[in-house]
């Protein structure tokens, strides 16, 4: 919001526009059409990027900026539509666009694994399952809005960044300059790292280790070499937005890399490995599985701890139905609980039908189908909460780890039915992404004054579009190019890492398909998951919200990412202590938002440029 000096800059602009008082535009045909169009374009593009490079992108910032240009610039400036491109109208546009786009990550990281394994599956049942997952993700997470946004006050860094973009017309020049400075710093650093002018990670500890002449494969040397600061301005910006509340993540990362890893190496738990193999052994067989366990235990325990608030939220949802009929509709801010329960039941039935059909291969019996649909729904709810909490605190989604658990669970319940296991896994991934996206959008809406019910309804209305589109694009790209050499099918065998030569390596799906083979062999780190879950539950008893999820996430992630986040947290705390909270709000937040948006947009631009040059 504008401070006294900033407001002066914006006043003249406003006084001109206030000469008219058109109805306040929020959910409009323009915002819906633009949101769906941008969402579809980003969905298809991000599926391609996911298959090529193995990472997903958030579309909210892109949609908000394009919406600002098209709804406000063209709508109000060129077409002279009174009041066009209002802040809340653009928020609906970005809500819809990201809602359509968000299915792309869930599909691209999982479905191609079925194709890579040569499985015979029915496309329509996969579409049915993912569509059910898409709806389920929304209806399951809405009752937690009160808990996560109003009570825990999770920051949702991208949500805050998008709110800063949306509010920029009224923020005044000083804040716009800070946002632009952040954007420029984020953009320059991202460009420099992607162009290899700067290292992606600064070897802070390695420098000290070399200075002391330590053996890099010894306990102390390993810990120091693992201590790298990621040059990711998005993570630094996320930490700057969160501040002191993010410190448990630094604590978790410190325990993982400075305590658990050195002890493990000194005890020979990593075997006789060195270099990358040693890092893989420590991270892959110790830290990551324990981290996943802590995430699960922490999320379950936080649900128990938050029971009074969740009960209150459900009561207010129940009241929403009655309030919607009142004359002013003031309290009708949420989708009614009847809508949510109906959506949940319908999605469950669809999931059950998918299980009965078997999605290809031998269909399971009615008992197994019921069990799979029920377990799938329960896991989906838990995974959705984990992802929403994790992105709320840090902007990072532990999607691949949760997808693996989903597939493992389904394989165990179906007795190794790979097609059904992965199909439900795809649905769970789509659902968890919907949870995180819906919650981030609601956070943005909270900050700009949108009515939650309108955002929930619009995202609900378009939830069916994304999954089908993503699946269609994956199938289209499966055997793309001359003779299928430009896709990721058997004709592109030997596709080099990074997709050189135009083919698509589908790295995440390749990893999942290898993991499915490992799970089928019975090698599941159940000990790590169980012990981690117990730790997560114990840690969540601390009087600090979401601590279990944060510590689990810290063990799950590479140290460089967590350190970058922690660096941002420390900056926030220092500025708050030296300059006061007002400077944090007025200066640091727009700067951090700029850092996040700068990295996202420059990374996207460079990726598209790379694709254009490589195809």
């Amino acid at each position: 919001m504008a401070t006294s000096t900033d407001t002066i800059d914006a006043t003249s602009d406003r006084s001109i526009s206030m000469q008219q008082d058109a109805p306040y535009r929020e959910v409009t045909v323009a915002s819906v059409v633009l949101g769906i169009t941008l969402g579809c374009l980003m969905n298809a593009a991000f599926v391609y990027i996911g298959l090529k490079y193995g990472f997903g992108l958030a579309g909210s910032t892109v949609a908000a900026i394009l919406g600002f240009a098209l709804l406000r610039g063209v709508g109000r400036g060129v077409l002279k539509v009174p009041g066009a491109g209002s802040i809340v109208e653009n928020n609906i546009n970005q809500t819809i666009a990201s809602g359509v786009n968000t299915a792309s990550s869930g599909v691209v990281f999982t479905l191609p694994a079925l194709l890579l394994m040569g499985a015979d599956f029915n496309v329509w049942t996969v579409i049915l399952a993912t569509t059910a997952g898409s709806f389920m993700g929304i209806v399951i997470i809405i009752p937690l809005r009160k808990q996560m946004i109003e009570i825990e006050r999770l920051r949702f860094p991208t949500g805050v960044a998008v709110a800063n973009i949306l509010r920029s017309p009224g923020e005044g020049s000083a804040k716009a300059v800070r946002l632009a400075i952040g954007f420029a710093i984020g953009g320059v650093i991202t460009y420099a790292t992607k162009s290899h002018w700067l290292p992606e990670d600064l070897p802070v500890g390695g420098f000290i280790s070399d200075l002391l002449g330590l053996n890099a494969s010894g306990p102390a040397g390993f810990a120091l070499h693992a201590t790298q600061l990621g040059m990711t301005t998005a993570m630094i910006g996320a930490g700057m937005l969160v501040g002191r509340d993010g410190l448990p993540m630094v604590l978790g990362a410190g325990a993982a890399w400075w305590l658990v890893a050195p002890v493990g190496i000194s005890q020979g738990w990593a075997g006789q490995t060195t270099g990358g193999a040693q890092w893989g052994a420590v991270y892959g067989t110790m830290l990551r599985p324990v981290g996943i366990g802590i995430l699960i235990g922490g999320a379950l325990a936080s649900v128990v701890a938050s029971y009074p608030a969740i009960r209150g939220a459900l009561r207010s949802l129940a009241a929403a139905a009655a309030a919607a009929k009142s004359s002013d509709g003031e309290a009708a801010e949420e989708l009614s609980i009847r809508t949510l329960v109906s959506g949940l039941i319908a999605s469950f039935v669809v999931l059950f039908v998918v299980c009965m059909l078997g999605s290809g291969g031998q269909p399971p019996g009615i008992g197994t189908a019921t069990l799979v649909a029920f377990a799938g729904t329960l896991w989906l709810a838990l995974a959705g909460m984990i992802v929403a909490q994790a992105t709320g605190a840090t902007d990072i989604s532990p999607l691949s780890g949760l997808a693996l658990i989903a597939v493992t669970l389904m394989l165990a319940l179906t007795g190794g039915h790979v097609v059904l296991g992965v199909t439900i896994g795809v649905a769970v991934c789509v659902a968890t992404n919907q949870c995180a996206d819906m919650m981030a959008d609601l956070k943005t809406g909270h900050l700009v004054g949108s009515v939650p019910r309108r955002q929930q309804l619009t995202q609900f209305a378009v939830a069916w579009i994304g999954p089908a589109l993503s699946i269609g694009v994956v199938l289209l790209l499966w055997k793309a190019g001359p003779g299928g050499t430009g896709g990721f099918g058997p004709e592109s065998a030997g596709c080099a890492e990074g997709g050189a030569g135009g083919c698509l390596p589908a790295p995440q799906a390749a990893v999942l398909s290898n993991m499915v083979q490992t799970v089928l062999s019975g090698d599941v780190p159940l000990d790590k998951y169980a012990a981690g879950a117990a730790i997560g539950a114990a840690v969540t008893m601390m009087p600090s919200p979401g601590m279990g999820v944060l510590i689990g996430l810290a063990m799950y992630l590479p140290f460089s990412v967590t350190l970058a986040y922690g660096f941002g947290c420390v900056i926030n705390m220092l500025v708050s202590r030296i300059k006061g909270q007002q400077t944090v709000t007025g200066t640091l937040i727009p700067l951090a938002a700029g850092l996040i948006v700068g990295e996202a947009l420059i990374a996207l631009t460079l990726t598209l440029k790379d694709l254009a040059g490589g195809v």
Partner: protein
Amino acid sequence: MRNIATILFLLGCGASMVLAARVPVPGTVELSSGPERLAVWFDAVGPWFVLAFLVTCAGALLSRRVQAEEARAAGEGDAQSVQHALAAMRTRLDELGDDTETWSHSLGELLEEDIPRLLEQRERLIAERGLAWFAEVIGAFARFERNVARAWSALTDGSPAEARASVARARRAITQAESLASS
């Protein structure tokens, strides 16, 4: 007491993390199933892990108790300061006047200064009055906050009628929050 709680928590948490990460059989033995891994791991470090787990729980519960006691000690003052803060915010809305062009600055100060200042007391209030009470109050307060933000957005977008309606809703919400806070 706070230091003892923190030390117990850190010791328990660190030890249980190390024990959880222990590979079932150091070396190269391959295990064929998840349950088998669990059994071998528990045979090796189970009792120590349970001990570390209990120490973590003790540290966490002690921390919770210390925080609740500190909140109770500061309690009366905090409760009054919340009442005063809510009343001050309602007064600020009451003083906005008819000319919406002058509202933006006041609404901006509410969003940037007054609301964050109150929310800084969140953890202490939960410890003192309980989560159920806080959830009730914060529900109404969040509605106030959202409507103030909407009024600010509407002013920026040149819709003073919407800004007036939002401020009216915000006023009702803050009055409700005051009433809930005093209960």
